[in-house]
């Protein structure tokens, strides 16, 4: 171990020498999460395996006055798990025990590092599953999903992470282990503390154990696919379906650029001249799904859809969803770097928002492709750029800012599912009035009065200031970090 920080040896005694990294070469991997623009090197990375170890690790870091930065598997997309100010990453990825599956009471208890999909795999054959399904579900942890209140594809009908969390165990920034609503009861008396912790991006405490609701896995589906000559028509189909009182499981959309990229990479047979592709799924009672699908097809036709296809064939369904899930991989083949933006708008505003995103791409000279959760109004413009070009990095950041400001203007939010992290800190005062920001700060201090855990994430800090919009010498994608 190259680092000489006195905390390292103490941490090693807590978690064991195999569960700590402190060699600068090894730490390079941990300098960013899924938001590559924000980077910072930790003093060390520790991998506790039990809640008690987490508590001891935190007490050790407090003793040495080191920032505590929680991390799951590092798939976050807003820089929430980036270490600034010489802090230490406390990674839950080795806390992988599924401790209990209680089918009669329809819940499971898992350690925070259990991968999202591992729980559903463990439930295979039971008829039940863990519903939240972020795109990262094969890699991301349930603890990380809780911290960011992760969404996914099937959330339109079945809800996001917070809707599936019954209770939590967490370790406060002074090392205290605490439980809220643990025990498999559907709700408790008093305010909903699990909901407050869910989506707090590791700024309150480190989540170590989760009581997850498990729900019946839908058995019958119909999948619908159509292409359009205009994004406007596809977006209007989405709002018309919802306005008709139909609640699909998911409604996903790709724009022309994305269709082209997916087709070039994987050859699914999509028409590359199309400007939009809508992929929609309904679940429910088998005997009535066909009638519901007829109504959806009629709505699509009234919005000039082409190549409409609906099916109940599991093989075809799997192919179509494979295409959706591979979209990000396809982007990787056409651009050196890309940055996925995340915002959510009222569904009825989608047509105008997508038009505005296109205009802003032109303004900043950046190519944008889109694949997004249209049914939720959750857009994901993907900006293609060259990470080695500082000007392009700046353009990405400025374009993002203008897209998000527009989304706020039309009644939307700066993040639907990725979180604020450091990426969107500077927009919080555009999203919330000063008194609301002050309330967030008071709540943060109730959990973490000395700002020891994940400071300067999600809400501005009075100790640390992270500035992404100022160009950094020789280090595209770096951040200016200053002590306040």
């Amino acid at each position: 171990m190259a680092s000489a920080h006195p905390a390292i040896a103490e941490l090693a005694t807590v978690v064991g020498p195999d569960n700590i990294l402190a060699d600068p070469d090894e730490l390079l991997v941990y300098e960013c999460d899924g938001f590559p623009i924000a980077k910072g090197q930790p003093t060390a990375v520790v991998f506790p395996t039990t809640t008690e170890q987490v508590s001891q690790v935190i007490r050790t870091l407090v003793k040495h006055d080191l920032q505590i930065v929680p991390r799951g598997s590092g798939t976050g997309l807003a820089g929430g798990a980036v270490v600034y100010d010489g802090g230490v990453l406390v990674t839950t990825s080795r806390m992988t025990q599924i401790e209990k599956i209680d089918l009669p009471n329809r819940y499971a208890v898992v350690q925070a590092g259990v991968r999202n999909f591992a729980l559903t795999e463990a439930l295979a054959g039971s008829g039940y599953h863990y519903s939240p399904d972020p795109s990262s579900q094969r890699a991301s942890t349930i603890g990380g999903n809780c911290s960011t209140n992760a969404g996914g594809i099937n959330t339109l009908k079945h809800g996001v992470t917070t809707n599936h969390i019954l209770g939590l165990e967490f370790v406060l920034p002074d090392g205290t282990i605490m439980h809220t609503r643990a025990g498999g009861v559907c709700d408790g008396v008093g305010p909903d503390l699990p909901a407050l912790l869910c989506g707090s991006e590791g700024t309150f405490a480190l989540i170590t154990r989760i009581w997850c609701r498990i729900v019946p896995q839908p058995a019958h589906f119909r999948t619908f696919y159509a292409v359009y000559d205009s994004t406007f028509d596809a977006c209007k189909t989405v709002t018309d379906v919802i306005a008709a009182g139909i609640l699909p499981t998911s409604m996903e959309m790709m724009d022309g650029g994305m269709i082209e990229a997916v087709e070039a990479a994987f050859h699914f047979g999509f028409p590359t001249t199309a400007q939009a592709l809508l992929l929609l799924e309904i679940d429910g009672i088998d005997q009535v799904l066909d009638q519901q699908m007829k109504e959806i097809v009629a709505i699509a036709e009234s919005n000039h859809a082409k190549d409409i296809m609906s099916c109940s064939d599991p093989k075809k369904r799997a192919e179509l969803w494979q295409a959706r899930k591979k979209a990000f991989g396809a982007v990787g083949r056409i651009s050196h770097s890309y940055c996925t933006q995340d915002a959510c708008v009222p569904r009825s505003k989608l047509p105008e928002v997508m038009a505005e995103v296109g205009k802003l791409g032109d303004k900043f000279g950046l190519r944008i492709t889109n694949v997004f959760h249209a049914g939720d109004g959750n857009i994901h413009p993907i900006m293609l750029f060259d990470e080695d070009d500082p000007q392009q990095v700046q353009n990405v950041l400025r374009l993002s800012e203008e897209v998000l400001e527009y989304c706020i203007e039309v009644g939307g939010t700066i993040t639907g599912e990725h979180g604020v992290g450091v990426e969107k800190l500077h927009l919080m005062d555009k999203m919330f009035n000063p008194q609301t920001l002050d309330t967030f700060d008071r709540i943060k201090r109730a959990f973490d009065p000395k700002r020891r855990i994940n400071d300067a994430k999600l809400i501005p800090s009075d100790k640390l200031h992270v500035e992404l919009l100022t160009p950094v010498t020789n280090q595209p994608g770096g951040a200016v970090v200053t002590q306040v």
Partner: protein
Amino acid sequence: MTDTTIDNTTNTITNSDGLAELVTQCAASKTPIVDYGVAHTGLGFPPPDEHIQLAYRPDLNTTAGGVIEHYDRDMTVRAHAGATMRELRDALKTTRQFLPIDADDDLTLGEVVTHNVYGPMRVAYGSVRDLLLGLHYIDGQGRDIHVGGRTVKNVAGYDVTRFMVGSLGEFGLVHEATIRTYAIPEQATLIDLKLDDPGLFDRVLSQWMLTDAAPAALSMSNEPERWTAHLIYLGRSSACAVQRRSLETLIDQTEGVHLIGSTDGTFDRAQDELSARRVWRRGATTLVKLMVPPALTGAACGEIQTWGESNAPVTIEAMPAHGCIFTGGELSPHGARKLGDLANHICRAHFGQFAWHARPPVIPEAPKIAPFGPLQPDWPMMWRLKKAMDPKRLFNPGRFITTRSHPKENDANN
């Protein structure tokens, strides 16, 4: 518009500016503001002797049924927290939409949110925490706080919106809420089943939920001489027919359950039925709510029933899918105390919780009946949050977060 004379009479306020003004005045005079709602006056510790009693009612001449904006194509509504459920129901009906919350007509939306009101329809639609998108509330400094928003997904900032659900009005005065709406189902099929014992759903519900027979609403009650389950299917008539057939098959395959009757009707009819089944709660002088793991609902109901047979007759209304049980009736103070002991015993055995909604007058010589229990381990955090969000302890002080219930823990956190 606003009468803020500081006494215990009810002060009716019609807008958020009035609420802010009231809070500012009360903060200056250190006078608590009390709002326990209309159906939850017995929930929690009683208010302090000196207080202002608040009633927030929007001016319905300027808003249609309390609706501020109805984004009907987005299936969301922004409404005054002071609007009643009846007003909102009528207002949304014009676009064939509804709020899927089982709540009495006279409850305000604010009361529903701050008391986490739900009922049997939670099976299909979730509870308030699943439906609520955003809130506006006045904080302890008289400031207007806006959390959440109107989009169905939103992770910007802390989720104070959901935190407020069930907060018993201890953290601020909610004056506006944005919430998801749903299309009114074409049909409601109401089915009653006779159960030989209340534990049936403990054994079969997890399997039944995997079939077409999974209901949209489920409850059961101890009607005279029998346990009755009430199932509702909602949706297209063809779907309801399939579900009813699937249920009939399950009934044939399951011992101890018998079909009493089945009726097809409108969704309005279903809402009226749901409403009628909970009427007894408003009249009960003794009412306690228990929350246990779902598969122990029937067992807990059985224990309560057995207790009732040898002590005092009680009504039991349960939601087996969510482990929620309401029980009570016309009990003596002594009987209520014993029922409280039983609730405590059941909840301790099964990691459950209970909350009294109505308690008979206290017997002077007996110890008081604790309004909640058992003590939850997150209680110290609640105390810290109360201090952060309502530092002057203006809002329903001592109702839930109080030195009276847990003096030891409170001392530890002061």
